[in-house]
């Protein structure tokens, strides 16, 4: 397993854990305080999810990179897979962002707009990771 494949898998697992943790916090707050989602204090958990998720990914990336010292970390296949998968999820992010823009003009609560941006950002990265891992496991279509 190459360094790029390891970092992609690590990022996917971390992203999933952080994403689930964010929603556990939001749902728990909504249930325990008996308030609708739009009245939950979501800003702190979302900011924490972005910063902690990004920080943990950077640390795991550094560890995997460091453990592979002395070996060739990337090769031509990594480069080809990166090229192949790099636009996967971009369409989803674009459509989701357009949806967020329409929601803002319709005066939808900021919670739902931010949640839409957060969700499509996460899902786009998940699609990208899924395509990358599938390309490593099953090869790229010719």
């Amino acid at each position: 397993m190459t360094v790029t494949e390891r970092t992609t898998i690590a990022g996917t697992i971390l992203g999933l854990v952080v994403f689930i943790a964010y929603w556990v916090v939001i749902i728990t707050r909504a249930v325990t305080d008996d308030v609708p989602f739009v009245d939950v204090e979501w800003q702190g958990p979302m900011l924490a999810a972005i910063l902690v998720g990004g920080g943990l990914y950077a640390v795991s990336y550094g560890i995997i990179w460091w453990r592979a010292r002395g070996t060739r970390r990337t090769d031509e296949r990594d480069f080809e897979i990166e090229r192949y998968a790099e636009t996967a999820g971009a369409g989803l992010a674009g459509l989701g962002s357009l949806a967020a823009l329409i929601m803002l003009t319709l005066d939808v609560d900021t919670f739902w707009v931010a949640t839409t941006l957060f969700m499509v950002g996460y899902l786009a990265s998940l699609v990208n990771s899924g395509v990358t891992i599938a390309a490593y496991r099953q090869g790229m279509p010719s």
Partner: protein
Amino acid sequence: MTITERYQWAYGFAVLLTSGAYFVWLGLRLAEQPADSIEYVTPLLWTLLASFIVHSFGRGFAAHAARGDSGSDERDRAINQRADALSFFVFSVLAAAPLVLGLMGESAFWITNSLFLAYSLTAVIGVGLRAWSYRTGALA
């Protein structure tokens, strides 16, 4: 010039014309009145619709002008893929601004317009990257 390249110019022209007009109008309004009192929603929706219509006409003209030219080829696909990837990266960075504004509890005016600006800038940068690549072969 392939049809794909002509389509890109049509897209860039539509975005520059419509979004440019909107942001000039918004700048003039901001110079005269507070942001939260500006009725921006209807002009913004008209801008989106106008952009779609101008882009559609532009594609029609491009297709007409490209009669007899070569269709899309492998180079077009390579340039498109790289430019899409770089544009996605640019948009991800620019879209952080409305997200941060939302986290800070700013008004919908600033969140909406920063998101629309991110969209417009990404489109212009994407077309610019393609034009640059077609001229220099940098991304192919």
